[in-house]
């Protein structure tokens, strides 16, 4: 086992440190996957889930809504239309959250590199914690990928979700390049970053300025009787 880095742990009294340890220990062992089949790699997920490979052994189980989930599996290529929905889903998930890019297409476009319809580098639009390459990766590969994610979480090394807050400007810029300047999501990422103390150097920038200019405040849902 690798030595656990001290600086990754929150400073404070012993009790809170023990609590953090426990928290991280449990977090590594209970991962809820969002049930969203974005691409063709999703066909290898049922075998992973079901009787033969049984990922519940690792404490991983599918959940149906982004609010409940911890892991966003991008199973293969994401078309631009899907990417919009993936962004909405990603921002709705509660942190700490992890993104796993399954299949070669999430790395570099895969065999659809010529295609006008698919996004090529997933890493540009959201921070990815782990890639499982292959077209498509076998269930064993997915399970071993999940295992290494579990190990990373336990060691406190998988903190990529913080990057999204800290470098929001970069990610937003790439999204705007693809979706146009009017792009906005219902989630107030900057507000969340401020609230949870995750504002970094890259949180604000030219792209967030564009966002603040075009952003229309969300209205509360109309109540009708």
């Amino acid at each position, binding site marked *: 086992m690798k030595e656990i880095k001290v600086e990754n742990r929150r400073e404070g009294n012993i009790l809170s440190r023990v609590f953090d340890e426990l928290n991280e220990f449990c977090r590594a062992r209970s991962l809820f996957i969002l049930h969203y*089949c974005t691409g063709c790699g999703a066909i290898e997920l049922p075998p992973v889930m079901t009787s033969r490979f049984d990922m519940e052994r690792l404490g991983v189980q599918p959940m149906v809504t982004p609010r409940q989930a911890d892991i966003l599996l991008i199973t293969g290529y994401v078309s631009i239309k899907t990417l919009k929905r993936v962004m909405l889903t990603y921002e709705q998930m509660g942190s700490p959250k992890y993104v796993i890019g399954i299949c070669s297409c999430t790395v570099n476009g895969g065999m*659809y590199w010529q295609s006008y319809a698919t996004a090529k580098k997933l890493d540009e639009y959201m921070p990815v914690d782990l890639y499982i390459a292959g077209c498509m990766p076998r269930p064993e590969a997915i399970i071993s990928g999940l295992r290494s994610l579990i190990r990373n979480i336990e060691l406190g090394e998988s903190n990529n979700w913080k990057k999204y807050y800290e470098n929001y400007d970069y990610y937003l810029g790439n999204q705007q390049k693809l979706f146009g300047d009017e792009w906005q999501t219902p989630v107030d990422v900057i507000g969340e970053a401020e609230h949870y103390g995750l504002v970094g150097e890259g949180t604000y920038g030219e792209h967030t300025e564009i966002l603040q200019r075009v952003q229309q405040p969300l209205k509360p849902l109309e109540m009708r*009787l």
Partner: protein
Amino acid sequence: MRAENYQQQSHPPSNQFELNFGPNHPGIEGNYALQVEVEGDVIVKARADGGYLHRGFEKLMEQRLWIQNISLVPRICVPDPSPMEVCYSMAIEEISGIEVPERAQWIRVLQLELSRIAAHLFTFGGHAATTGMYTPMYWGVADRDLILDLFEEFTGGRIYSIYNLPGGVRRELPDGFLDKVSEVIDYIESRLPEYDNLFFRNAVFIKRAKGVGVLTQEKSLEMGVTGPNLRATGLAFDLRRDDPYLVYDKLDFEVVVEEAGDAWARTLVRRQELLQSIRIVRQVVAALPDIGGELRAPIPNPLAWRVPAGESYARVESSKGELAYFVVSNGGEKPWRVHVRGPSAMHAVQVLEELVTGGRVEDVAQTMFSLDACPPEVDR
């Protein structure tokens, strides 16, 4: 206020609201969406929304060599990929006038039928899961995995086999492979009674599935429904029998028909087709050792192959219905145009919209899964 400034605001009744089924929804097969307007529990309007899986296959194929596209086409339908490459190869063979050796044809039939069994096992599980019974899904996917193991052994890929070439198949079957096929087929057949007890004789499931999403024969003909969904309405039509390709005319099998046309009938048709596929695989396993000869007809250097100008329309009965490739060549290195007619393009859009409307919220997912809609075929 002046009259021309007055904008009438329409307030829908309070029990009416919009609901998005998908794209991120467990009740949707794959990455697809259905926007429904619900009044109480009843759906008054449904609109399919596709394109989430669009990769521009047809454009990609125009940019790649004829032979490169073989590895591209299986990705069009993920649960049942084998018919795609066979159909594409058949289309090229027809244009260039290549005769496929008999042994290759039998091996292709083996591949197609194994793929069909796998796809049907997958569909049951999905259908059962939409009604809240997850055990058939767990069993079905695990049993399907045995077939994927077979595929891995003889083609090298679990899902995408990329085993065909225009003119034949790539490799000879491994030693002792046919014995393994019969073993797996026997095992799956022995499992079927358990599926029956769990699923097909389950009173609650029958109550849920009967009368849901009824397609009459007239309507399914009008709307271009094909495959098991058409046979569930009482029309005995199967491309394997009525537009025979490969060696299906030498094989003995029945075209399964059900009359009711609802979700239950569609599932029953698939259940019985499973048996027919097992029957076909047995015949192929019995016949293959006696059929010798080449594995593929000679083709020019595939990296510089110019398929002669012409066009062809090849059709295959996939597990979802009529799958067709319209391939046009202008004599170049790359296809001029490949049009994929996915079977789900019909029943996942217009038919689904129509069947869901007037139905209940709890039956949307079931209707979609019982139609065995495959969104990547729609989006391509």
